[in-house]
């Protein structure tokens, strides 16, 4: 599903894995029709390329057998990095580099380090997770991904099949599936 182009000059990476994908898609008017259609597609062992919705639909991840996101693991790691950075840095500054007596407190005043340690944990975790999120999604400022239909971000729910190299009867099969499950629009597009 990676079909975006990054122009990162320094890395010279062009992720163009699915250039010229032929897509046959159907638009549904309601998420309940979409869910029923996906159940039927699963029963008939049809391979869905992707599903697009205007808002997150509950139960969809389960129906599509999407793997659970591992963002929280990344978040934990980033947060831990923040904790260590803050705590070790402050400890080094006030015990090794330039120890100063503040208000008669010991050089290594751990309670005083807690607020900044906490803040940096949250900061690293949030920034790290958000950057990771956009990276794995293939999204970012300047990224343009061709969309199938303008109403998908409005009120239509879309099931998309990839039809590169499919026979006419296969395509006919898919079209029949889409119309019998109640798609209000069936179309194809090259993206």
């Amino acid at each position, binding site marked *: 599903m990676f079909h975006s182009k990054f122009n990162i000059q320094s890395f010279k990476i062009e992720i163009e894995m699915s250039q010229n994908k032929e897509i046959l898609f159907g638009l549904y008017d309601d998420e309940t029709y979409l869910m029923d259609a996906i159940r039927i597609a699963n029963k008939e062992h049809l391979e869905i390329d992707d599903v697009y919705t205007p808002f997150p639909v509950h139960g*969809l991840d389960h129906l599509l057998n999407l793997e659970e996101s591992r963002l929280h693991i990344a978040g934990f790691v980033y947060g831990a990095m923040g904790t260590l950075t803050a705590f070790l840095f402050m400890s080094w500054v006030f015990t090794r580099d330039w120890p100063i007596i503040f208000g008669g407190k010991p050089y290594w005043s751990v309670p005083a380090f807690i607020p900044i340690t906490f803040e940096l944990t*949250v900061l690293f975790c949030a920034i790290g997770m958000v950057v990771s999120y956009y990276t794995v999604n293939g999204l970012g400022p300047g990224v343009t*991904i061709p969309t199938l239909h303008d109403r998908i971000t409005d*009120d239509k729910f879309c099931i998309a099949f990839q039809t590169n190299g499919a026979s006419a009867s296969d395509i006919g099969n898919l079209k029949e599936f889409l119309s019998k499950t109640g798609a209000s629009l069936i179309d194809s597009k090259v993206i």
Partner: protein
Amino acid sequence: MSAVVSPIREPLITGSKTYHDITEDICRPTETAPGLMWTIAMAVSVAGLACFAFSVFWTVYFGIGTWNLNRTIGWGWDITNFVWWIGIGHAGTLISAILLLFRQKWRTGVNRAAEAMTIFAVICAGQFPLIHMGRIWLAFFIFPYPNTRGPLWVNFNSPLLWDVFAISTYFTVSILFWYTGLVPDFATLRDRSTGMRRKIYNFLSFGWTGSAKHWQRFESLSLILAGLATPLVLSVHTIVSFDFATSVIPGWHTTIFPPYFVAGAIFSGFAMVLTLMLIARKVLHLEDYITIEHVESMNKVILLTGSIVGTAYLTELFISWYSGYIYEQFAFFNRALGPYWWSYFGMMACNVLSPQIFWFKKYRRSIFVTFFMSIFINIGMWFERFVIIATTLARDYIPSSWSYYVPTWVEIGIFVGSIGLFFVLFLLFTRVAPVVAIAEVKSILKSSGDQYRGKNAMPHHSHHDDDHGHH
């Protein structure tokens, strides 16, 4: 939010909306020219912003002496305003983050605007620590960067520095959280526009397509950011309270400040959200999305946090007497009966007495009463910070050092101007971005729209029960 909604809940979206209606209604203010009300409001706000710029210039050029800060009164309106603005900002995070964790669907009507309010309030708040430094061109000194003066580091033990990290983190995380939710909505705007407008929203929407996998990660990210933002908002205002609590001055050196400040922040923040929302829903015709249910829920939060603040005031009074410590006893005697007695009674009336009106359902659900209350509470909370700062500093340990503080035109200009800055940002926001979270409101339509719930609900077919299950 896949929890089943109780059948006795009132609908959160009125007007029998479809998904397309939601898109149209919320996108409309960004697609049509501004009306007279917006233009007048913007003109007044720009005038305020100009006042801010001029007063800040005067301060930086002539110095902090242009404020009436004098011996023992090191902080006046500057830190009062700082704490006031930061407190206001906390409601946005609470609505987005804490109400998400509590699965309160009503947050979807107000969270986008509340988060925007948080960001703009933090921008306004951040001006004050900067300009009160005096030598603002050396502001970067507060950050620990390697330098050739030793290297000379900042004082990590000082709450003033903890503030630097707390406010910076709070600002960054708020912007990230807000923008994450805005990306799908910008995609909606993108797909409805053409030409240059489409290019701009395409850039802003980061290429969002609505793919199921992206939504899955979106929900995961939102939940974790909410989980992060919750302790963050609690810690930020706690750290702000430490600016006072870690000192030795009677009236400041008290352990009640962290919960007192946090409750007060939520209290004043919700009042500001209500002030903004009551106007916005009228002017932008969003009454079907920001309903009386939303207003009532926010009033309940105001009643709760106002009562906590009131309890904190009474606790302070009791403890100051119970401690037997003459300086602490005097500090509170002075607040109520000293030269600033009028600010103390203003604070008590606005913060403790007036929210009690919300015990009555009739007033909780009255737009008129709510609007005036929200203004009173904002004023009352400003006075609370003023009472804490100015009255305490005016009468501390040694009577020969007692003084009195009155603001100068420069400080008044900065404060009034900061309100102008805030409204300029907010009014611009209402024109370029959707004021209500489009995708989130759509996701609660089936469970909370008035054709599915409440008095006007149509009898539903079994089809519609699918919105909560895995099958």
